């Protein structure tokens, strides 16, 4: 499903080169629920950006469903993100002036799908927000906002859900609810990668990849 082979990433800060990832190799199988943990500066954000096709590795190979992603250009990457990856962010990243429904429809606009409304309503219902579709993000509680974001991630039937600290802005009770949604999705066969620094959250996943100094310390 997802295969990283000796991935490195080097950032240039003026004259000096700062390595963020130093040879990451791992596989994530279809239907797996994996967490990536590590202290800040360990390279987990960089790794997530590469897995999410937002960034390209400096060297190494990345195959997503057999596609050699590291060879694609910007437009092709945009298409991959649109069709194959669903993002869930710590700060939700909803468009504040538009309704929950319009937020969920957004990826469908870029994929040129028809019957967008119907599809968006369907996923909103699946995350339990059928009654809140016309509300704007500011009118929704944090947990509800994150559910809208999850619905948006799901709307294009992606192969992979990539969640970056999805419970970082939520209280314990709400975090549990959100994690239960991820768990349900996993039980339905969705591949999920969670980036977090909270062991509690990592505990929901089957496998944890521990990063330290741009390398995989442990994978268990």
């Amino acid at each position, binding site marked *: 499903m997802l295969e990283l082979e000796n991935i490195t990433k080097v950032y240039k800060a003026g004259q000096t080169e700062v390595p963020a990832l130093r040879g990451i190799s791992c596989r994530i199988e279809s239907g797996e629920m994996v967490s990536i943990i590590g202290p800040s500066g360990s390279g987990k954000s960089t790794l997530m950006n590469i897995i999410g096709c*937002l960034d390209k590795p400096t060297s190494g190979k990345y195959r997503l469903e057999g596609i050699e992603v590291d060879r694609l250009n910007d437009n092709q990457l945009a298409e991959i993100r649109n069709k194959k990856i669903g993002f869930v962010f710590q700060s939700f990243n909803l468009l504040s*002036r538009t309704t929950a429904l319009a937020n969920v429809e957004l990826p469908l606009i*870029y994929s040129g799908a028809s019957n967008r409304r119907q599809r968006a309503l369907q996923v909103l219902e699946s995350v339990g927000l059928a009654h809140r579709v016309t509300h704007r993000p500011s009118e929704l509680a944090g947990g509800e906002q994150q559910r809208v974001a999850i619905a948006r991630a799901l709307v294009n039937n992606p192969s992979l859900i990539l969640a970056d600290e999805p419970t970082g802005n939520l209280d314990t009770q709400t975090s549990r609810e959100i994690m239960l949604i991820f768990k349900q999705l996993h039980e339905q066969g969705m591949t999920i990668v969670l980036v977090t620094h909270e062991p509690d959250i990592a505990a929901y996943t089957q496998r944890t990849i521990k990063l330290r100094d741009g390398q995989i310390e442990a994978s268990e």
Partner: protein
Amino acid sequence: MKLWDCFSTALRALLGNKMRSALTMLGILIGVAAVIAVLSLGSAQGALVEESFATLGANLIYVMPREAGVMGAGVGEATLTVGDAEAIARHAPSVARVAPTAQTYALVIAGREKLNSLIAGVTPEAEWVDNYAVARGSFITESDDRARSRVAVLGSEVAETLFGQMDPTGQSIRIGGRQFQVIGVLESRGTGFGVEDLRVYVPLSTFYSTLAASQAGSSGNTIDSISVQVGSSDGLESAMEEITAILQDRHRIREGEGDDFRVISMEAMAVQVTQVMGILQLVLAGIAGISLLVGGIGIMNIMLVSVTERIREIGLRKAVGAKRRDILIQFLVEAATLGLCGGALGVCLGWIIVKIMSVIATNAGFAFAATLPGYAIALAVSVAIFIGLITGLYPAIRAARLDPIESLRHE
């Protein structure tokens, strides 16, 4: 991304900030309004000149004292006399007809209605030379002039003011305290450079015997203007030279001295008016240019602010699959929509300005049929959209080039 989606996204963004969008449109709005006014005035000017030629004839020459205004109403020293008019009629071979006019203001009373009106003393030739059309009754005749009859012909507006819907012919009126009989009413001209509708016409001889005496300091035979009809338009140049020579001789104007009169053809008057309107158009065009430039800068400025404010939104859009092109188009459409709305409102404002100017000009005695040609609307709105696109391009390119990772992290 489909075009309609771009458009609805742009509209939503603009409506989300109504005040700012409205203010941003203002520059384009004023610029387009000025463009509309320029184009509309251009069409009105052409029509005005054409119509003046049609109603007054191209082979007409006016002779006026040097200080006189364009309208022919005496404002300076009267230097022309009836003798000058007679000399032109007798000695200028290219001239067909001569119609001298003397004018003064006097109180006109009909029953209870009073009106301080311009009284014109004219000869029967005026009907032909100045091309007056009689709506009711008749114009002043040879015998009226010879007998110094107390008869008057009313301009259409004067007739309406004094008599309303009633037929004034045969009625008595008092002009400057003396009794006159109305023998005719002119058809409304509502056009040309003159004040024809606003005057009362009396025989020139009667004018001197009754009204001119009350005119302080006037010495009997002075007149305010002479209208000269040339036999054929080919003779226009030679007629003007003949008239100038005759008057210089009569007024004893030596070589090198300035004339105390002006000889001006209808054509030259049309040119004068065209020049005045040309300057007006130039000023408006300048306003249009500057406003459009400032409006364009305004759009660019606001679009740059908008891009900066929405960096996270751009990052998010890219993360969920927006290509560079999609972001570029989104912001371009937004800028173009600002231009379009400003342009559309500008057309409305421009049309209102033209309407107001028409009313003012009509009241001042100009025929002013300003129209708003379809091409003018299309041109103005296209220019507005074009400016939106041009000035929106740089902000849109900046938005499209944003890196999704950094944008998502942006606070």
